[in-house]
């Protein structure tokens, strides 16, 4: 369904992501872990086609190479990225953005779900870190993407909300997920289908949930560029 083939991502000619390969099947949940600066967020943005990164290799979505498409074209095909730090969109309230999205894509958004109904009339510029993440989740859930990349969705969220988010992710059987984090403990409960470790721009190890426990106990230093 979703396949990354020999993908390299360059920022100012510097290779940040190095020949990454990753296959995600329909409805699977993958967790991508790695230390700060390992290239996880760059990979996420390259999947969405933002930041104007130069790329080499392929991003296959249902057999089509989307690596040269604009972000909006990727979004329309069913790719979603929840931003690690969404920028402030001044003057565009949550209500307005969601109503634009729902009229454009005939989708429904439920602001009750994460208890952000009362901030619906405001824009995100003065949202707390947690509110920003909930806003991302509400958009993600409403858009019903086929593949969703959630970049550090756990940061800033309180434990109850995170539990709720995890539950929701498990319920969304039609959506495949790539969950990016550098904290491993919180993601064990979700029982991911696959776990990948990214160090220095490369995915150096892919396995099942046990890999999370290993990272948990021994840290990323244990990998030393190989599995």
């Amino acid at each position, binding site marked *: 369904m979703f396949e990354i083939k020999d993908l390299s991502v360059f920022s100012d000619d510097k290779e940040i992501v190095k020949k990454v390969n990753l296959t995600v099947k329909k409805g699977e949940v993958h967790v991508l872990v790695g230390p700060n600066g390992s290239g996880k967020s760059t990979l996420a943005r390259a999947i969405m086609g933002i930041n104007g990164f130069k790329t080499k290799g392929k991003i296959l979505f249902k057999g089509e190479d989307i690596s040269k498409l604009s972000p909006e074209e990727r979004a329309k095909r069913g790719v979603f990225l929840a931003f690690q730090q969404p920028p402030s969109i001044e003057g*565009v309230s949550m209500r*307005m953005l969601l109503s634009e999205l729902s009229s454009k894509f005939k989708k429904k958004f439920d602001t009750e779900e994460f208890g952000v109904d009362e901030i619906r009339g405001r824009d995100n510029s003065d949202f707390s870190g947690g509110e920003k993440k909930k806003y991302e989740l509400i958009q993600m859930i409403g858009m019903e993407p086929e593949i969703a990349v959630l970049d550090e969705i756990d940061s800033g969220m309180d434990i109850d909300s995170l539990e709720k988010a995890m539950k929701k992710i498990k319920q969304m059987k039609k959506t495949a997920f790539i969950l990016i984090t550098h904290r491993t403990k919180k993601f064990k409960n979700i029982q991911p289908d696959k776990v990948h470790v990214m160090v220095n721009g490369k995915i150096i190890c892919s396995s099942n949930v046990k890999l999370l426990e290993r990272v948990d106990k021994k840290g990323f230093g244990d990998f030393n560029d190989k599995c």
Partner: protein
Amino acid sequence: MINVEEMSKQRKEPKWMTDLRIKSLKAFKQLPDPNFGPELDIDYDKMIYYSPQEEIKSLKQVPKEMRDTLDKLGLPEFEKKRLAGISVQLDSSVIYEDVLKKIRDKGVIIEPMDKAVRKYDWLKDYFAKLIPYNDHKFAALHTALWSGGVLVRIPKGVTVDIPIQTFFLLKENRISQFEHTIVIAEKGSKVHYIEGCSAPQFIQKPLHVGNVEVFVEDNAKVQFTTIQNWTDKVINLATKRAILGKGAEMKWLSASLGSKTTMLYPTTILKGDDSKVENLAVSFANGEKVLDTGGRAIHIGKRTTSRIINRSVASENAEVNFRGKIIVNKGATGSKGYMKCDSLLLSDNAKSEAYPSIKSSNKEVELAHEATVGRIGKDKLDYLRSRGFSEDESISLLVNGFMEPIVRDIPFEYAIEIRRILDMNLGINN
């Protein structure tokens, strides 16, 4: 050019008006063009200044293309939704006016200015009193040749709780429009007046010189909203002034979205102690447009407050400029003045300048001004595009968001219309 004495006679005007027109025309010929602002390039001899027209009593008599414009704006719809009044000015006559009876029953006067001049002798104490006929070249031109416009007078203590609306349309080629509007809010009264302006595409190069005089008596409140969407041939030179009594509050809200050139700087004289003015403006300029807007506040009374806030957006080769002036007289102890102008440039060729000026003869005051010029952040564009909006749609959302702090004070139906105009100017079809 034109015989104003003859024109005045045809219109059966009182002598004070005929005399005023004659001396205004004389002043116009003597006064120089303004020494600031955009280049105007007006051929005064080629303009058609006045064409009398029959009054039309119902919307059905309005020419079809005008009706279509009104329909597009949903104006008849508005009316169903409790509108205080609409009057439409086609070229230079007020052609349609429909005012809810209950407003007039409160003693409110809403009258086409052409009629009002014949009807109310006291009008001579207001007409051209805030904007003297010889104030500047266009004030003189306007006062010599004005026709159309509206008189609104709210009696003491009366609150008109739904906006009074008028609509100006330009139709024939080369016809200029010089409507004169006067709003008098007597002590403790409250009113919101909205004027909209529009012209279809076929207009060649008309001149619009509208004058607005607002008298806000003690403790009265007035909001004066203008939605200007002239086509990109119109030269729009509006002079707007208000004078405030004790504790009076004035709010100017101007959305300048059209015209080839606009010069608009509403001036407020804060005469009464504790009076307040808010001067809010948004402008959007595309193509080769030059929108030169801002505001002036003259503090005379004690503890008076002024806020002049501009938000402007320019795309393509357009130019948006801000001119703000706060003048504080000696007696205005404890007054506060604040000016802020933010501009957003959507292209490399778009331009923006700010000309703020503060003059104070009193030391016990708080005065400040700020100006920023920005561009749309790539990160914001990326974010919206990642949600499936095209680049143009994302820009439109961000532009609307930029203007939102000012547009939020405009009634919903008009805010929607502003959005539609902006989208059209940004090349988006909804």
